[in-house]
C-alpha cells in the first residue's frame, strides 16, 4: 500500500480522535437510556420514523431551515458551511471513485485529491467534477466570509448579542475558519504548479505563480490545511462543534419518541451536547432587561455540559419559554432546566403529611380559582357570577381552604413534594363526580393538564370554558366600546398552546388591537414564579419594558388571562388591567338581557341578582 504523504498525519490523528470519542459517548449515552427508551429505538428503527429523522437531519442539520426562517442571511451562513461542506465531502469521494474506477483506494486521496492526482483533468466528467468541487469551495468560502463579517456586525444577521466563548470554542472556531481558506490556498498553489485546477483555483494559482515561486510553499500550504482539519477535529469534543454529530443523534432519538424525564439521564446529555451555542436564545431572553447576562439557556447548557452549574444561574430564569420557541435545534430548554432543578433540590422535598381529605361535594363542574386568583378577587367574583348567570351547578373547590395545585413547586424543582399535593387534589376532584374542571390560573391549568391523571374530566382554562358558554348561547354577547390589548400569559400561550380561544372570546366583547409581540412571540410579564433569584426591582424593569410596548398601542384596557400577570401589570401602569373573566362579566352586565332582570336564571338568586331583591353586585360603569 502506498504511504500517505507526511502532511496528512494531523488530519488522520484528528479524525481518529473524534471518531473514537463519538463511538464511546454514543455507546455510553444509548446504554444509559431506560429500558422502555431502548425498546422505542429498536421498534422505531425499521419504521417510517427513521425516514422522518433522515429528512429532518437534512432540513435542520444541513439546510438549517429554522435559522433561515429567523434570518435569511444567518441561515445562508450556516447552510453554506454545513451543507456546502457535506456536499464537498460527497463530491470529493465521487470524484475519486470516478477517477480510480474502484472503491478500494486509500481514503486520504479523496480528501487531498488535488495533491494526490496532479495531472490535469481530462475528459468531460473529470472536468465537471473539478468545476463542481471548485464551485462548492466557493460556496463555503462565501459562508466563511459572512462568518468573519458577523464577528464585527452581528446585527446584520438579526442578532443583537452573540455568545461569549470559552477557550475550547475559540480554538475550534479559529481552526474551522482556517480550513477552507487554506484548502483554497493549497489547491491554488498546486494548480499553479501542475495546472490541475478549475475555474476558481486555476486563475488564483496562475496569479500566485506569476508573483513568486510556488515550489517551496506547496508542502507548507498542504500542511496548514491538514493541521487546521486536525486541530478542528481534536478540539471538537471540547467545543460547541460537538453539536454537529450529536444533533443528528438527537433528531433520531426524538423521532423514536424519547423525551426528557423528571430526572437527569443520558438523554439530557444528548440534548446538552446538541446545543450549538448559536446565541439565538440570547436576544429572546427578557432577563437582559434586568441586566442578567449569565443565566441564559446557552450559558446554562454549557455549565450543565461541564458539570459546573451553580444555583444562581439555574434559578435566575423566568421559564417563560421564549428561548425554547426560537431554538433552531429544538431543545427542550424549559424541561432541561426543570430537570436540573429537580436534581439540585432533591434532598429537601416536603412530605405535607398534614393534608387530609374529607368527602367532596357532588357537582358537574369544579371551579378552581388558584392561589393567585385569591389575591385578585375581581377574577373569582366575576367567574362566580358568570357561572351562576349561566346556571352552572359548580363546586368552588378552593373557596376557603385548599392546597396549592403543585405547579409552583415543580417550577423550582420540588417534584416529589408536588406529587403529594397532586395526589391530594386528585382524590378530591375524582370523588366529586365532576366532568369538567375550570381553572382561572394558567399556572394551575398547566399542571392539571399535564401532571394530573384525571380520567373522564376535561380540564379547561376559564377562557376556553367561557367561550364554550358563549357559543352555546348561555352567555349574552355585548361589544363594549373599548380598544384592548391582550397579553398572552406564558403558561397559557407558549406553555399550553392556547392562543386563539382567549382572542375569540375577547373579540366578542371588545375590539382587539394587534401588537408586535403576540402569541408565541409574546413577552413575559416578569412576575413568573419560576425565578426565585430575581429581585422585585428587576421584575419591575422587565415589566416596564413590556408595558412600554403595550402603552404605545394606546389601549383603553390591558386584558390578560392570568391573575399573576394582572397583579404584576396593575402595579406598573395607569391603564386599566383586567382579566378576561372580568371583561366578559362587564359585557354581560351591559348586554341587552341585563336591564330586564327577570330573565336571569334562578341560579343567580344566591348572588342577589333576583329582580325582587336589591342587587348585591355593583355593575361596572362604562368609561
Amino acid at each position, binding site marked *: 500500500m502506498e504511504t500517505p504523504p507526511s502532511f496528512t498525519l494531523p488530519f488522520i490523528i484528528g479524525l481518529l480522535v473524534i471518531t473514537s470519542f463519538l463511538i464511546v459517548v454514543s455507546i455510553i449515552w444509548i446504554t444509559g437510556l431506560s429500558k422502555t427508551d431502548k425498546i422505542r429505538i429498536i421498534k422505531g428503527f425499521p419504521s417510517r420514523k427513521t425516514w422522518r429523522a433522515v429528512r429532518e437531519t437534512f432540513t435542520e442539520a444541513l439546510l438549517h431551515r429554522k435559522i433561515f426562517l429567523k434570518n435569511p442571511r444567518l441561515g445562508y451562513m450556516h447552510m453554506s458551511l454545513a451543507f456546502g461542506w457535506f456536499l464537498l465531502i460527497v463530491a470529493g469521494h465521487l470524484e475519486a471513485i470516478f477517477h480510480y474506477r474502484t472503491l478500494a483506494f486509500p481514503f486520504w486521496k479523496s480528501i487531498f485529491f488535488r495533491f494526490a492526482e496532479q495531472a490535469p483533468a481530462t475528459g468531460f466528467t473529470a472536468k465537471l467534477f473539478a468545476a463542481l468541487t471548485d464551485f462548492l469551495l466557493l460556496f463555503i468560502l462565501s459562508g466563511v466570509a459572512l462568518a468573519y463579517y458577523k464577528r464585527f456586525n452581528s446585527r446584520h444577521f438579526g442578532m443583537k448579542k452573540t455568545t461569549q466563548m470559552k477557550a475550547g470554542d475559540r480554538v475550534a472556531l479559529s481552526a474551522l475558519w482556517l480550513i477552507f481558506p487554506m484548502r483554497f490556498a493549497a489547491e491554488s498553489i498546486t494548480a499553479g504548479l501542475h495546472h490541475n485546477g478549475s475555474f476558481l483555483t486555476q486563475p488564483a494559482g496562475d496569479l500566485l505563480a506569476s508573483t513568486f515561486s510556488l515550489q517551496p510553499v506547496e508542502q507548507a500550504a498542504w500542511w496548514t490545511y491538514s493541521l487546521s482539519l486536525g486541530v478542528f477535529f481534536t478540539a471538537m469534543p471540547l467545543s460547541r462543534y460537538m453539536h454537529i454529530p450529536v444533533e443528528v443523534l438527537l433528531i433520531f432519538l426524538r423521532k423514536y419518541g424519547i423525551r426528557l424525564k423528571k430526572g437527569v439521564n443520558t438523554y439530557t446529555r444528548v440534548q446538552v451536547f446538541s446545543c450549538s451555542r448559536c446565541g439565538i436564545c440570547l436576544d429572546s431572553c427578557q432577563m437582559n432587561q434586568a441586566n442578567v447576562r449569565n443565566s441564559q439557556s446557552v450559558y446554562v447548557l454549557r455549565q450543565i455540559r461541564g458539570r459546573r452549574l451553580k444555583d444562581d444561574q439555574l434559578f435566575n430564569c423566568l421559564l417563560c419559554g421564549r428561548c425554547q420557541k426560537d431554538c433552531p435545534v429544538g431543545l427542550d430548554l424549559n424541561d432541561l432546566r426543570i430537570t436540573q432543578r429537580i436534581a439540585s433540590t432533591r434532598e429537601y422535598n416536603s412530605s405535607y403529611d398534614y393534608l387530609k381529605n374529607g368527602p367532596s361535594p357532588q357537582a358537574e363542574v369544579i371551579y378552581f380559582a388558584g392561589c*393567585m386568583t385569591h389575591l385578585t378577587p375581581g377574577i373569582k367574583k366575576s367567574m362566580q357570577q358568570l357561572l351562576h348567570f349561566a346556571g352552572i351547578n359548580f363546586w368552588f373547590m378552593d373557596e376557603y*381552604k385548599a*392546597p396549592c395545585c403543585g405547579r*409552583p413547586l415543580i417550577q*423550582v424543582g420540588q417534584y416529589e413534594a408536588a406529587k403529594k399535593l397532586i395526589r391530594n387534589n386528585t382524590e378530591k376532584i375524582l370523588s366529586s363526580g365532576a366532568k369538567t374542571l375550570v381553572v382561572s390560573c394558567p399556572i394551575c391549568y398547566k399542571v392539571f393538564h399535564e401532571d394530573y391523571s384525571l380520567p373522564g374530566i376535561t380540564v379547561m382554562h376559564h377562557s376556553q370554558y367561557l367561550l364554550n358558554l358563549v357559543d352555546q348561547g348561555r352567555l349574552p354577547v355585548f361589544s363594549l366600546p373599548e380598544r384592548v390589548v391582550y397579553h398572552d400569559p406564558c403558561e397559557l400561550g407558549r406553555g399550553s398552546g392556547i392562543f386563539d380561544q382567549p382572542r375569540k372570546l375577547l373579540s366578542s366583547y371588545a375590539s382587539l388591537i394587534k401588537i408586535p409581540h403576540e402569541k408565541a412571540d409574546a413577552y413575559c410579564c416578569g412576575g413568573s*414564579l419560576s425565578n426565585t433569584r430575581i429581585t422585585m426591582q428587576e421584575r419591575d424593569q422587565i415589566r416596564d419594558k413590556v408595558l412600554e410596548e403595550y402603552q404605545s398601542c394606546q389601549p383603553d384596557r390591558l386584558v390578560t388571562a392570568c391573575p399573576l400577570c394582572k*397583579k404584576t401589570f396593575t402595579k406598573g401602569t395607569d391603564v386599566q388591567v383586567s382579566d378576561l373573566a372580568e371583561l366578559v362579566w362587564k359585557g354581560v352586565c351591559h348586554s341587552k338581557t341585563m336591564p330586564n332582570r327577570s330573565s336571569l336564571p334562578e341560579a343567580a338568586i344566591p348572588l342577589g341578582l333576583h329582580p325582587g331583591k336589591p342587587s348585591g353586585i355593583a355593575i361596572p360603569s362604562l368609561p
Partner: protein
Amino acid sequence: MNTFGYKIMSPRTIDFDQFDGRLLNEVLVKEPSFRTCLSCGGCTATCNAGTLIDFNVRKLNLLLRRGEIASLSREIDKCMLCGKCMLVCPRGINIRNVIMLLKKGASRLSEHQKTAVENEVQK
C-alpha cells in the same frame, strides 16, 4: 383544644453561646431583601398553607435569628411555595428564595447542629 387552667411551662432559654449564625448569614448574603422585613405579618395572613395547618411565615424570621433551626426546618416543610406571601409583602422581599435557601441550608446541617441552641436547655 386548649384546656382551661394554668400550665407548667418548661423553661425556654436560648443559649446564645451555642448560636450558629452561618445559616442566617448565608440567607442574608444571598437574599439581602430579607433584612428589610418589618414583621408586619402580611405573609402569614395570606398564607395558603396557614389555612390548612398552624403555620406562621413571619415566625420563620424569628426562629432563624434565634438559631432554632430544628423548629425552623420543621415549620418550613409546611410551605407550598405558592408565592402569595411574596406578592403581598410591602417590602418586596423574595420570600420564596428565602424559603428555598433555608431548606437547602437546613438539609445540609446535622441533627446536632440544628438543635444546638435548644440542647443546652434540656441538659
